[in-house]
């Protein structure tokens, strides 16, 4: 059994593909650095990420796959799921080996897994666009915080920049400890001190709030209650479409 150890980046994975072809040995297990190795194995190869090797593999893929398939490949990697690695690795190898594009062969286990993961990541991106709630701070910055299950902030940020192009905002991914700050002109990647109370609770302190913020939150909660038709109560559907894991930061579900 051959094990490849890599740094769990997309470039690392592509370098692993390059190494596999140049060593003529393909891994049975692909795992990140620091994961415990299984009890029995034949050899371990540590992949050293190399941009030029990764670039060569990517170029080879560009000849074999459509731009949409390449996007889905890259986007699926943002899921950060450990079980995706080996599927993606085999997908890339199959794409390189096959004379024609395999991207539509959904009967293939690896292709289907990558496509399904891609779908899940896209859906989580939509969830971020749905469930981010901004609170207006006294200095005019809109503050939003979330814990998406996949790393979708880079996919969604362009949507927010376009939509709210005239208001400064901060969107923070608490699970991955980074965010984007937009000052009305430029986007900046930021990492902030998370011990502050509003990062713990997700709620800005009253002293920091804009003077009308409380009123609009109340208005929104009033609206949320009033729009419900009591004869049709359906908490199961509500939880299906708006899973409870997002409720922590939803204005209408707080207070």
């Amino acid at each position, binding site marked *: 059994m051959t094990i490849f150890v890599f740094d769990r980046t997309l470039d690392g994975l592509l370098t692993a593909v390059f190494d596999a072809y140049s060593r003529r040995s393909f891994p049975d297990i692909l795992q990140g650095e620091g994961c415990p190795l299984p009890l029995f194995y034949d050899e371990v190869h540590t992949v050293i990420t190399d941009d030029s090797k990764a670039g060569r593999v990517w170029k080879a893929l560009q000849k074999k796959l459509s731009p949409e398939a390449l996007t889905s490949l890259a986007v699926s990697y943002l899921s950060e799921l450990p079980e995706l690695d080996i599927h993606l690795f085999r997908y890339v190898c199959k794409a390189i080996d096959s004379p024609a594009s395999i991207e539509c062969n959904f*009967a293939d286990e690896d292709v289907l897994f990558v496509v399904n993961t891609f779908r899940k990541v896209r859906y989580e991106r939509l969830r971020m666009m*749905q469930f981010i709630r901004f609170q207006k701070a006294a200095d005019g910055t*809109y503050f939003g915080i979330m814990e998406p299950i996949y790393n979708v902030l880079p996919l969604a940020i362009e949507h927010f920049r376009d*939509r709210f192009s005239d208001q400064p905002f901060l969107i923070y991914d608490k699970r991955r400890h980074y965010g984007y700050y937009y000052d009305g002109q430029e986007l900046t990647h930021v990492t902030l001190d998370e011990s502050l109370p509003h990062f713990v609770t997700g709620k800005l302190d009253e002293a920091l709030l804009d003077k*009308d913020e409380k009123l609009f939150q109340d208005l*929104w909660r009033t609206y949320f209650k009033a729009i419900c038709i009591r004869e049709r109560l359906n908490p199961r559907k*509500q939880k*299906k479409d708006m899973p409870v894991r997002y409720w922590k930061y939803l*204005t209408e579900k707080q207070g």
Partner: protein
Amino acid sequence: MTEETLNKLRILTESAKYDVSCSSSGTVRANRGQGVGNTVGGVGICHSFADDGRCISLLKVMLTNYCIYDCAYCINRTSNDIPRATLSVSELVELTMEFYRRNYIEGLFLSSGVVRNPDYTMERLVRVVKDLRTIHRFNGYIHLKSIPGASRELVSEAGLYADRMSVNIEIPNENSLKLLAPEKNFQSVYEPMKFIQQGVLENKEERRHLRHVPRFVPAGQSTQMIVGATPDRDRDILRLSSALYARPTMRRVYYSGYIHVNTYDKRLPILKQPPLVRENRLYQADWLLRFYQFKVDEIVNDTHPDLDLEIDPKLAWALRHPEQFPVDINKADYEMILRVPGIGVKSATLIVNSRRFGRVTSFHLKKMGVVMKKAKYFITCGELLSPSVNELHPENVRRLLVPKPKRNIDERQLTLDFGST
């Protein structure tokens, strides 16, 4: 913006909530730094889900819930003693902008009770959306109700600012409509619909010559029908929907299970519960019309005027037509695969793509997300699955697929039928 606004918002939301339409789909418009907001197209964005499970995408309010009409099914009818309120244009505009900036909503869904006359009301609605678009440079989604009986000029002006417009039919049969809403008739509903349609078509022609002509109601129009308030059959409702979808700009027909709001009115049936299952079946049938290439007569016809409440309309069709099955997954057309119960648009696309590379087997189908529990009676894929619908007979398949009642009814127990009416 004060406490009073809070009260007004509550009253006007309570009045507007029986309108089911809430989608923010159908138009893609980037912001490009010209104002606030964009629209994303696709399926739109739902920002929240209320306790009744319905999505909240747009701020759905009425400008006012005063109304001169006395429609029997409506909560806002003039003879009802409910709290009434009117939002000022500036209040409504500020609410929309501030909610939008906090990512609470995708845009505005504005309707109104009829005050004085249809034109007066429509003019005020147009003023709100005009303010939003021109003064506040609001670039998000706007859904505007067209008031039945409003003049052509006002509808044409509204169409320049709104993304989608709608006129509700409410009752699928003109005689019932006249009985329940004496001030309305089909003419007053279809007239504004026709204005919108003509506006869109003219605009399309104009844009062919001049690319920078602003778009007119780019997301088309929608309408709504109340289900269960009149004795109309599903056949009548779906035939009307199908005829509406044949028109060039009709994008969505919504179905609203009748909720017994005006309990005192003897013209309306007494329902303990809104007909939720029937409403759900109608939506399923609607999907068959729009995405599954079904004809309305295949779903409901004179021998089967109502949808089966126990099984979905696609399964019901398949059980009525066992001669069409089993379908060979590896050979049949996309259209036929789409008709198999348990296979949807997504899995049908995956199937026809994959089978070019090799045989698709039941193992693959399961992985692709086909509901094999249903599909297995209707397909072959070169292996022994289970007896087909023809071998088992449709009525037996039906028995296997009808959901079992949750509680076991003790058959030894004598039940007395007191009559349900």
